[in-house]
């Protein structure tokens, strides 16, 4: 088994937390991982991405080759488009539609949505709304992971374990809030 995922977003949106949950979940399932990340822009409103490679065999390259990602998981709609050349032919684009506007030339939202809809396999959702509705307003990122849970080649149980491990040290309340977000995301995309 081999899954290549590109995580995308803007600094501060929690994509590295998604990476950590998937990372823990993969280790739980005794898989090999390599996860390369772009450090640094996180505090400065820059684009942030992470290449996450999960495999039953050792992984060679830290970077995903172009056209090989089976999933682009983005917490921001424009950022989902930035990595399209990495998407494989039958790959999925799963993104939140809530724009993060910190630049003056942010493109028109309908153009962005139209471009995403052109990709055969896509899921668009308002992660903020889903997060609020399930009572975990700060967990949009985990809602997105839940929405993508059917496309990461890991059992839902392993992802739940990952959430427990990542949020465990912050207390049971945080674990519960994020498990709710994970479930809500999954329910939405079903």
């Amino acid at each position, binding site marked *: 088994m081999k899954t290549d995922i590109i995580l995308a977003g803007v600094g501060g949106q929690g994509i590295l937390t998604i990476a950590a949950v998937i990372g823990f979940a993969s280790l739980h399932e005794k898989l090999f991982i390599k996860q390369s990340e772009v450090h640094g822009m996180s505090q400065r409103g820059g684009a942030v991405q992470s290449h996450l490679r999960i495999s039953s065999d050792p992984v060679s390259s830290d970077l995903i080759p172009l056209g090989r990602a089976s999933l682009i998981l983005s917490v921001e709609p424009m950022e989902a488009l930035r990595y*399209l050349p990495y998407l494989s032919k039958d790959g999925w684009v799963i993104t939140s539609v809530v724009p993060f506007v910190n630049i003056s030339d942010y493109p028109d939202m309908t153009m962005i949505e139209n471009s995403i809809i052109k990709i055969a396999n896509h899921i668009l959702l308002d992660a903020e709304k889903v997060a609020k509705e399930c009572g975990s307003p700060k967990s949009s990122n985990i809602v997105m992971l839940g929405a993508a849970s059917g496309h990461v080649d890991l059992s839902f149980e392993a992802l739940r374990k990952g959430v427990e491990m990542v949020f465990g040290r912050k207390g049971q309340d945080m674990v519960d809030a994020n498990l709710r977000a994970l479930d809500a995301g999954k329910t939405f995309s079903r």
Partner: protein
Amino acid sequence: MRQIYLKTIVGKKNYGYFCDGQHNLGCLFNSIKEIMGQLVLLGAEAIAQGALDAGMSGIYAYPGTPSTEITEYVQRNKYARDNGIRSSWSANEKTALESALGMSYAGKKSMVCMKHVGLNVAADGFLNSAITGAGGGFIVTVADDPSMHSSQNEQDSRFYADFALLPVFEPSSQQEAYDMVFSAFTLSEKFGIPVMMRITTRLSHSRASITTLSPRSQNALKLPEDPRQFVLLPSIARKRYKMLLGIQNQLITESDKSGYNSFEPGTDHSLGIIACGIACNYVKENFPGGLPYPMLKICQYPAPEELIRKMAVECKTILVLEEGYPLLESKLKGLLNNTNLTIKGRLDGTLPRDGELTPDIVGLALGCKVALGPDIPEFLANRPPSMCKGCGHIDTFLALKEAISEFGGDRTFSDIGCYTLAALPPLDAVNSCVDMGASITMAKGAADAGLIPAVAFIGDSTFTHSGMTGLLDAINEDSPITVIISDNETTGMTGGQTSAAFGKLEGICRGLGVPEEHLKIITPLKKNQEPNVDVISRELKHPGISVIISRRECIQTAIKRKKEEKSRKTEP
């Protein structure tokens, strides 16, 4: 055509701008060990863990992407704290390297870490340490940044090692990064020389599982047998240099025998591949079913000549893949002394001359198909990093812009730090960023040429890194420059490390000789704009040296500090 396209999309995602910083997940992943008995580490962290397990007594460094995480890992490591492993930040790379050399003189294993341009600052000590040699194992770890994700250039540190006649370990995986620290300490102590560990951004910032080795103990204090070993008077230096030259062949033999260098035979001899460091991963990525061509993986230098000759016997066309400048590629012809060979790589255009390698660039060079996904829509906007909302640098720049407007002209020499982002709109406020400390000295030179007044804009950490000596030059000639030290009380750009300047700036300026009446302190806040413009205007008109310290805590550091204070209060 396709290659150019590849380059542009690959380039499109990089807006790097001396950024570094937040890797709070590091701690999270590091805790996997407790939870799952596994270590999942960044390449940088693997080096740190390797150094701790190999019995290092101290690490010395000045922050810089992509090297910062090595030292930070040691700083937060419990074993390191409990065992007094020395790890706080140094004022700059030169002081760091020299301190690490001092620890090695005293017989203990030490490491110094820096980003590639930091080695320029430490180059004098580095090259001369090759002549003095080492006592305890001494590793110089340098993290290069091809593609300049967060740097001013993409220089390749292997050239420095080649120049200094010292061996290099260049890991191709997180596991090798860990293992090589053991090997590097061993090699350093076997030959009594410094050894370089070279990584690049991708490996430094990518995580994978690591298997650890059984730990080694620290060395006891032990002085050099020859009390003059480290005294580089010409008569001694000449002898030591001959000794260094004398061991070169042995170092080549070490490389030929090294487990990190390997010759993998192939069935198709129309091409031979020499892949250095992480480049060999990209080759393997392109041939999941097995590589038809012979491949020589090189991760330890000096280049293994025996293995390279073997390749030249088997293949008449050799492709050299290097994550960096074409070092080996340019040496190959001379080394093999054979004009019948065709050498391909960055010099003949098979690979781009600049930038980091990717699986796709390597794939193209090997004739593999790239399965490009959909195009990026034309309308996509860049999202360049910017200074944080509420940052004190912004208020300082706004005051400076207003005060300087009466003089006009581009006369603000700046430096390296978050404030360099003021070069971009909307501030458009600085005219230079060259190397740490250059703001003050360039302003001085421009003033010497008649650009009066000239302004230097420098951060607190950069000032103590390399600004102080330049300020002394300007003071000694009472140069008509205004130096603004924008003091956010931290090393902001690299993620908020403690600044060596903290609490010391006024004292340093006074001590160097800044006249009391031209040493001003202001607080950069919107409400102070008017008085601040006033202070700057007056100092700009002063026909001699002035220093304005504009001080307000970095808002990121402030947020972090308040969070920590709060959690300390709530903890029982």
